[in-house]
């Protein structure tokens, strides 16, 4: 039987997916535009699955609760929006170094500073280039629909446990607040399986497990780093995800992630009505970034326009991917302003089509 389709807000759909994924614990602190995640979980989660839902006293406390709970091998998570995620960076670095799985959700708003509660994408650098200290990477999924806000939750937990690494879902305020049709997955049991590395009390038949990010001996610490780097190379080889729309015959490619990619799809549609062949390339994993696919695409097109809700962040990775083969232009809006399809088409014509004819 086909499951009922529901109309849900992005934040609520994500929270529902967290319960259905069999998550064990959520620690968080409210902030617009993602407070519905904590609200929804507080109302629904504990009575349905026995999941722990705790409002911490701050974001710093939330991420450290996640660190502690993740050490027991449970499926744990937190969520916040840009300023709150900034406060969590130290904890994220510790969790990455201690090689623990967890899910962190950032429903971005416009920055810097307290900024605005309207949507933004200006946390790209913070997310994929290491917002905290040290050589670590954050596996990052960028949803563009409410359905993906649902689907990526379970994917994120699976990746987190597969690689023992923190995984981020990088959304934005508009995705969190908008409503779309969603198909929900079945309820997963909360697993009783305890991973071998978890710190749950030593038994006589094994060595004790230690979870730490501290090694004062530089050679030991270098080995920790080498292990991490080896893991990141594996992730880069296996986990790259992206979506291409109408790229086969395209002369120009719009590159965007998250919600903006959908606005670009509309812009591409408008362009095709005018006879300009435009496709859309959407990285789904921001780390690992789809360098190879973009580089290959550069052989068959005339140029790229990267569109983001920031001053130009992912465009640096697009340029690294294209390696100068073709021009890469940028258009961005900041401070909570969302670009319109017409505006993107206009910029494409102004920056690429007009120049290259």
């Amino acid at each position, binding site marked *: 039987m086909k499951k009922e*389709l529901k*109309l849900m807000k992005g934040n609520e759909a994500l929270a529902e997916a967290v319960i259905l994924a069999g998550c064990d614990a959520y620690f968080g602190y409210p902030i*617009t*535009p993602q407070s519905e995640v904590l609200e929804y979980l507080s109302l629904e989660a504990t009575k349905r699955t026995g999941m722990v839902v705790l409002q911490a006293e701050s974001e710093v406390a939330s991420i450290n609760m996640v660190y502690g709970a993740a050490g027991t091998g449970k499926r744990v998570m937190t969520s916040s929006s840009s300023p709150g995620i900034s406060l969590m960076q130290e904890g994220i670095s510790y969790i990455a170094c201690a090689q623990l799985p967890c899910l962190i959700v950032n429903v971005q708003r416009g920055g810097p500073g307290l900024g*605005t*509660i*309207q949507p933004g994408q200006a946390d790209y650098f913070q997310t994929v280039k290491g917002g905290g200290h040290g050589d670590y990477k954050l596996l990052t999924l960028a949803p563009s629909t409410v359905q993906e806000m649902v689907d990526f939750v379970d994917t994120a937990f699976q990746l987190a446990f597969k690689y023992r690494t923190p995984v981020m879902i990088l959304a934005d*305020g*508009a995705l969190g*607040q*908008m*409503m*779309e*049709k969603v198909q929900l997955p079945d309820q997963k049991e909360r697993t009783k399986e305890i991973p071998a590395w978890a710190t749950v009390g030593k038994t006589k038949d094994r060595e004790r497990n230690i979870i730490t990010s501290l090694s004062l001996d530089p050679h030991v610490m270098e080995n920790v780093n080498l292990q991490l780097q080896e893991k990141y190379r594996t992730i880069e080889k296996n986990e790259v995800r992206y979506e291409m729309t109408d790229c086969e015959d395209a002369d120009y490619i719009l590159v965007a992630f998250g*919600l903006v990619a*959908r*606005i*670009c*799809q*509309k*812009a591409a*549609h408008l362009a095709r009505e005018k006879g300009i062949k435009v496709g859309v390339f959407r990285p789904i994993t921001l780390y690992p970034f789809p360098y190879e696919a973009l580089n290959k695409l550069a052989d068959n097109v005339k140029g790229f326009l990267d569109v983001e809700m920031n001053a130009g962040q992912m465009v640096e990775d697009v340029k690294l991917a294209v390696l100068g083969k073709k021009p890469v232009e940028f258009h961005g809006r900041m401070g909570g302003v*969302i670009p*319109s*399809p*017409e*505006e993107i088409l206009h910029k494409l014509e102004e920056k690429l089509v007009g120049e290259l004819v």
Partner: protein
Amino acid sequence: MTEEIIIAGFGGQGVLSMGQILCYSAVMEDKEVSWMPSYGPEMRGGTANCIVIISDEKISSPILTKFDTVIVLNQPSLDKFENAVKPGGLLIYESSAIINPPTRTDIEILPIDAANEAVKLKNTKIMNMIVLGAFLKKKPIISFESAMKGLKKVLPERYHNLIPLNQEALEKGMELAEKPVAV
């Protein structure tokens, strides 16, 4: 079929729920939908709006600047969105609070005196449903039955005793859309 709509008015007039009812109703008919609200400080006492897209196909951008139908419930929203109607499109406005009516000649304009009709129905809160009824008469993109089902989904259960009144309001709006009152 793709219908791109913006509904705008003061916070509290029910513009967001109008959009939600439309979306739920369309989901009942297995259509694709997108509901994008304005959120934030402007919702407290200021203007609120939502962009609603209903389509038989997958929806790309939930953010738009031009619309097939613009529904406005106050003067600031009319001033802001009159020019956002696509040529040949439809502009519905609640006429009781409008001092400067729209002037465009390349679109269909439908004033609905919903506030006064709501008073006649003895509940001013259902003004939005009268306007929604008028829209559904002009653009029957979803059936009346689906609209009633959508309403039941959006209205909290404790208010379900008001469903007959809402139905009456929808029907009133449909009636008004057939013979619009001169402004």
